[in-house]
């Protein structure tokens, strides 16, 4: 599209604003992508702060707005924020576990102009769902999903897949059919945040994934005109990385509960970032001028093997967080890439877990649930990171 005369014409725009309203959550999913150190994030932004962020981002071209968390329903001002967002012209997405919702709130959201609701399920049966979520929530989620459709929202159901539930993929898909979902996201766990802590318990085997993929394909075909099924396999099993977040500082802008702005919701763990805060800076400066958002933009920051690679524009070197976690240096190639010298090590790890999975003792190792108590414990154990 030509944007003649616009000073933004050659630059990326924050099309997607992810508002992580809070890290408080009644659930405790052991794969949660929130930072393990979430207990440190106090001091949530006020209603006025959020409204200012939404206004500034909208001016810069943001169109999609996701209210997420934690559990966004915990925020009492959610209705006000939705109303404001909608009047600014955003397409408003509520990304929720469904816990904290009831019929009157669903109606209030509709009146405020909410466009879409995404509900996550942990599994397709009560026992596993409640175990993984660490809360008795299955029946309630089911009822809420029914109500979301009753009030004519488009509904996305999101199920994070891992070794404990991936074999039940058929039941999971039957559940989404029964609930009349418009879209289904079968998202394989990404191994950062809490899922990295629990990787031994969560990483599926190759056989499980192949089985899951064939069933997902079958349902995609069968439900073609009624329901869109998105199935993503974990990139640990691939030889080329994903173009993470569609590129650093390219279309995604995440604001953490305390107001820190991030190019990706997992980037909080990267060393050397300054985390510009929306309390101190406007979104324009953060997006266009802040050191953080320029740090891994484009390709000039790359080292070998990426810098001379002819595929560098395709994947932009993959995920910075994964590179940091698995190699200790965020400017390295994502080790998912088989040109990375760390690729073998990653596959070794995948194989080690594959060999052990099914083993009774290994499988009975407890999951570390995502809650403030565990967050504090893990944060205290960690040696302070050198910046």
């Amino acid at each position: 599209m030509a944007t003649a005369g616009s000073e933004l014409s050659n630059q990326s725009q924050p099309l997607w604003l992810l508002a992580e309203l809070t890290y408080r959550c009644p659930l405790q999913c052991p794969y949660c992508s929130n930072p393990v150190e979430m207990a440190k994030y106090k001091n949530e932004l006020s209603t006025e702060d959020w409204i200012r962020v939404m206004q500034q981002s909208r001016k810069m071209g943001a169109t999609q707005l996701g209210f997420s968390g934690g559990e966004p329903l915990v925020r009492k001002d959610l209705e006000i924020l939705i109303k404001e967002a909608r009047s600014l012209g955003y397409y408003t997405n509520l990304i929720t576990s469904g816990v904290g919702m009831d019929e009157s709130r669903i109606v209030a959201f509709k009146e405020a102009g909410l466009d879409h609701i995404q509900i996550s399920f942990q599994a397709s049966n009560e026992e596993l769902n409640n175990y993984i979520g660490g809360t008795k929530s299955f029946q309630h989620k089911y009822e809420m999903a029914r109500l979301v459709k009753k009030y004519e929202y488009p509904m996305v159901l999101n199920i994070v897949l891992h070794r404990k539930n991936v074999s039940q993929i058929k039941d999971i898909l039957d559940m989404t059919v029964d609930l009349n979902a418009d879209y289904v996201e079968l998202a394989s766990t990404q191994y950062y945040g809490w899922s990295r802590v629990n990787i031994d318990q969560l990483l599926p085997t190759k056989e499980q994934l192949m089985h899951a993929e064939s069933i997902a394909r079958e349902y995609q075909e069968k439900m073609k005109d009624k329901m869109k099924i998105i199935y993503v396999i974990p990139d640990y099993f691939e030889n080329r990385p994903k173009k993470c977040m569609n590129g650093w500082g390219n279309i995604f802008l995440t604001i953490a509960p305390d107001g820190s702005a991030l190019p990706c919701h997992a980037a909080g763990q990267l060393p050397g970032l300054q985390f510009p805060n929306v309390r101190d800076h406007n979104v324009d400066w953060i997006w266009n001028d802040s050191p953080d958002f320029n740090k891994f933009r484009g390709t000039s920051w790359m080292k070998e093997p990426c810098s001379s690679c002819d595929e560098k524009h395709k994947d932009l070197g993959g995920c910075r967080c994964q590179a940091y976690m698995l190699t200790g240096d965020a400017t390295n190639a994502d080790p998912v890439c088989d040109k990375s010298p760390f690729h073998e090590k990653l596959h070794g790890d995948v194989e080690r877990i594959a060999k052990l999975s099914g083993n009774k003792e290994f499988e009975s190792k407890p999951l570390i649930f995502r809650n403030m108590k565990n967050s504090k414990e893990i944060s205290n154990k960690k040696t302070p990171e050198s910046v």
Partner: protein
Amino acid sequence: MELKNETILEIVPTFRVQWEEVQNCYVVLYPEGMVKLSQSAGEIMKRVDGKKSISDIIMDVSATFDGADVNEDVMKFLEVVYGNGWIRVK
């Protein structure tokens, strides 16, 4: 389903079409996604309002493009987005 000249179309309620100032174009919005429309596509989609028939739309669009013959292009475009599930018969 075949689209005819007298067919009246509307946007499926789970999609939204709106003008975006910063992008300088019309866009289609849906859960967690957006498609930017070309100028001609925008001119067609903004007229799908649950009132106009396809021939009204064609006449209208033709007028904005100095009376050009847009008959076939509009029909083709509407068939594609009908297939996408963005529009439906009123």
